[in-house]
């Protein structure tokens, strides 16, 4: 059904072509995908042109849509509810209901659309250089494009099924992209692990969707004329007060489990670092800014369900917030012991996702979404920078300790962009991260989750610390290994050694690219700045890393809070009257929005507050719960900034002591502590991690392996997966051998043998002797006669 607001006295909603046709956005890359598959190889640029073109197209469309949305919002008063632009065509029908596919466009979806389209464009441009000459160049772009299509589709999704569609397509693409260099077993295993882990989480998605559907469908069909899958319907139903608490809680928990899997939340986060086996652009796109935020997006998308289901703002602790908090610390702590620069970034991603989840869990909806927005830019930038380093400076290695150091002189652009993004990530004023992250922490505290505010601050400290360490190792100090010009093939971090065999199969990032460069850069191994196709995206992203924060710069006062105005759905009671026409493929039904009826909302602290989410609306429906917004206080900001700087300085000093000065006290300490090997010299962290893992992961997952934090972490999930795999394989084998092959077949064959045996037993009767035959003949007759005589007399 095409649902759109009609003009009434109170609400004048403008719309526009882009807004009405936003559903085209995912179609563009989808089409491009098939073009690449079928014609890519024959194109001059091996199909990458399709990909880039489609991304640009998507970007234009979403930009236009965003613009028109802003118009639409500006057109109405501050408090009025802004109807999202919803379209739906019948996709499938069942039990007489027809379920749609279409678009559900509002501030949230547009924000993500723009981000995804934008980052994808840059990453694809970047990849043309980075993967130049790769043997599966075309496949790579195909998967990349399909991936974006999936993500975009998930974002515009009008209902859960469509959302699942995009969700799973992303899973598939991550499988294909992580395993891009599948010749090396390690990569394909990582790919398998990623897909399998997220798939495990998806049980929750299937179950949750089912539960919610059946719980909501009747209500939604009756009141809104939409199915129980539709996001709009679910949101309204959740806030309608008619929802059964049990159903909605189960549904919310189930869905969140899926988010845990997808967004790499504790305890299902271990696939994310492994996923770094994929080419760097993949890491930058999938595992920093888009795919992993899918889970966060899902929570934000059907927020009312979680709001009611988890009783957010009702208590001072709930499932989401806990998971988020735990993830922040764990991941951050892990980032310290990495030598692989990409893994540092991976863990930092996990921990940032933790922030987002924690924010959502604590009712800080807007800051969380805002953090998705800003984080996308600086994290993508960081990954691309790392890629740039390995591409041009460290001879395709990601090992900070072995192959980097002192690079700031050689690659100024990369360095600058890196620094900017790092500052943004750490949340230093006035970089973008500050505005989003600090808001989250602030609001978490404001909503009464004090404990988690503390965790947030600790996280901020750790973030600052490990980023400083990474920065120091990479750009400062003296050049080491490849960075110093030594050309060695062995020991490239997690790189597989067979990667230089005669044939061109490679386990390692961008070796093809390397080979394709010819031997000139073998001749001059020296690190240097990367080419424009790499640096320009970096610069663009860095700029945004600075600027994007201003979109919702709370510190600067009300009129800077644009995102709040444009994106946050207004919690308003909306009267929905209207007729539902037969749900044909294009059967339209108009919903007339009238003025907020019922209670005149109470003014409080200059902020308009409705009762949505607190109690059921007497008439009409709510589409969003009323949330709090912490008033900004410089004092608080100063505190967190202080913590951040503290982190940086301490970390810096220690790094200097360790890596440059080789301070005896510390270095000696590592000699006395072999447990984690020479790589793990950071004293505090070492003890901290052992402690952490033995307490948290091991006990909670009850998987008794503790041979060093990092090792554990690597093996918790592997262990479970393999264990499960091996275990079930064993069970399976046993069942198969004994039940399947013995019992059943045994019965069958046994019957056969029995028959044969009986035949044998009867053969003597067939002796061939006439007299015996006669005897048998008469004997039977006589017996029969005897029986008859007896029973008849």
């Amino acid at each position, binding site marked *: 059904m095409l649902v759109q607001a009609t003009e009434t006295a109170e609400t004048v909603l403008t719309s526009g072509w882009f807004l009405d046709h936003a559903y085209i956005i995912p179609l563009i890359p989808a089409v491009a995908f098939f073009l690449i598959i079928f014609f890519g190889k024959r194109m001059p640029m091996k199909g990458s042109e399709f990909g880039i073109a489609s991304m640009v197209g998507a970007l234009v469309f979403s930009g236009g849509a965003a613009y028109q949305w802003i118009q639409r919002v500006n057109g109405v008063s501050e408090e009025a509810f802004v109807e999202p632009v919803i379209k739906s065509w019948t996709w499938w029908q069942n039990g007489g209901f027809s379920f749609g596919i279409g678009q559900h466009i509002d501030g949230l979806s547009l924000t993500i659309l723009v981000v995804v389209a934008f980052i994808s464009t840059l990453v694809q441009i970047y990849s043309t250089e980075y993967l130049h000459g790769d043997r599966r160049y075309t496949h790579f772009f195909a998967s990349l494009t399909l991936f974006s299509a999936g993500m975009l589709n998930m974002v515009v999704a009008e209902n859960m099924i469509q959302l699942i569609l995009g969700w799973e397509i992303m899973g598939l693409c991550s499988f294909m992209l992580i395993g891009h260099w599948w010749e090396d077993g390690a990569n394909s295993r990582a790919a398998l692990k990623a897909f399998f882990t997220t798939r495990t989480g998806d049980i929750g998605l299937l179950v949750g969707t089912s539960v919610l559907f059946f719980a909501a469908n009747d209500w939604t069909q009756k009141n809104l004329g939409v199915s129980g899958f539709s996001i709009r319907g679910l949101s309204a139903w959740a806030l309608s007060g008619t929802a059964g608490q049990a159903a909605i809680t189960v549904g919310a928990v189930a869905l969140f489990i899926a988010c845990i899997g997808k967004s790499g939340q504790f305890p299902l986060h271990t696939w994310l670092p492994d996923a770094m086996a994929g080419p760097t652009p993949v890491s930058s796109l999938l595992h920093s800014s888009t795919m992993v935020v899918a889970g966060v997006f899902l929570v934000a998308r059907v927020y009312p369900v979680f709001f009611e289901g988890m009783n957010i703002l009702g208590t001072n602790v709930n499932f989401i917030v806990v998971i988020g908090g735990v993830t922040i610390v764990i991941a951050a702590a892990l980032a310290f012991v990495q030598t692989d620069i990409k893994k540092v970034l991976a863990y930092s991603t996990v921990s940032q996702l933790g922030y987002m989840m924690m924010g959502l869990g604590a009712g800080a909806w807007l800051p969380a979404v805002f953090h998705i927005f800003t984080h996308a830019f600086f994290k993508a930038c960081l990954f691309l920078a790392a890629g740039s380093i390995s591409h041009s400076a460290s001879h395709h290695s990601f090992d900070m300790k072995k192959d980097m150091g002192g690079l700031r002189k050689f690659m100024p652009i990369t360095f600058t962009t890196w620094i900017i993004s790092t500052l943004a990530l750490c949340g230093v004023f006035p970089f973008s991260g500050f505005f989003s992250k600090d808001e989250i922490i602030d609001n978490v505290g404001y909503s009464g989750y004090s404990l988690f505010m503390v965790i947030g601050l600790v996280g901020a400290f750790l973030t600052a610390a490990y980023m400083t360490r990474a920065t120091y190792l990479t750009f400062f100090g003296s050049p080491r290994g490849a960075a110093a010009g030594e050309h060695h093939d062995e020991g490239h971090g997690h790189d597989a050694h067979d990667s230089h065999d005669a044939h061109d199969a490679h386990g390692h990032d961008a070796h093809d690219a390397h080979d394709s460069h010819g031997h000139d850069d073998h001749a001059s191994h020296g690190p240097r700045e990367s080419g424009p196709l790499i640096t320009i995206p970096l610069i663009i992203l860095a700029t945004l890393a600075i600027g994007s924060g201003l979109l919702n710069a709370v510190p600067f006062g009300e009129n800077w809070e644009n995102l709040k105005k444009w994106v946050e759905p207004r919690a308003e009671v909306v009267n929905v009257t209207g007729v539902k026409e037969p749900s044909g493929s294009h059967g339209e039904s108009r919903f007339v929005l009238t003025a907020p009826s019922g209670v005149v909302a109470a003014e409080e602290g200059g902020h308009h507050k409705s009762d949505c989410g607190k109690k059921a609306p007497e008439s009409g429906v709510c589409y969003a719960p009323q949330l709090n917004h912490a008033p900004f206080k410089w004092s608080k900001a100063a505190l967190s900034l202080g913590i951040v700087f503290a982190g940086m300085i301490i970390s810096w000093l220690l790094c200097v002591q360790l890596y440059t000065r080789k301070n005896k006290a510390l270095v000696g300490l590592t000699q006395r502590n072999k447990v984690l090997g020479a790589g793990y010299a950071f004293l505090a962290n070492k003890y901290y991690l052992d402690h952490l893992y033995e307490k948290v992961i091991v006990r909670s997952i009850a998987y008794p392996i503790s041979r060093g934090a990092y090792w554990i972490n690597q093996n918790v999930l592997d262990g479970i997966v393999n264990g499960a795999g091996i275990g079930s394989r064993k069970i399976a084998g046993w069942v198969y051998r004994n039940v399947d092959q013995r019992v059943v077949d045994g019965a069958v064959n046994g019957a056969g043998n029995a028959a044969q045996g009986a035949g044998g037993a009867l053969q003597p009767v*067939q002796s061939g002797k006439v007299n015996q035959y006669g005897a048998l003949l008469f004997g039977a007759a006589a017996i029969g006669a005897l029986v008859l005589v007896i029973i008849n007399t």
Partner: protein
Amino acid sequence: MLVNQFLMLGAILFCIGVYGVIARKNAVLVLMSIELILNSVNINLLAFSLRNGSTDGHTFALYIIAVAAAEVGVGLAMVLLMYRNRRSVGLDELSEMKG
């Protein structure tokens, strides 16, 4: 009346015949025993038709006698054939086929 005695006689003959068929290994004797049974049947029939005063019994008996004659003819012919082929009329040698 003496129908019962006739029937008794028939029964006895029948049993003797059956015994012969089962016990005798000599084809000819078995043949004879079968004839014995047939005669027991004839006696029955005659006795009954005597009691009922209807002629059907007699007719039946005549048919049986006639058919029995034919049977014996065929039977003896076969026995002869058997004797010619294996110089014996022992039935228990006839077990070429079994199982």
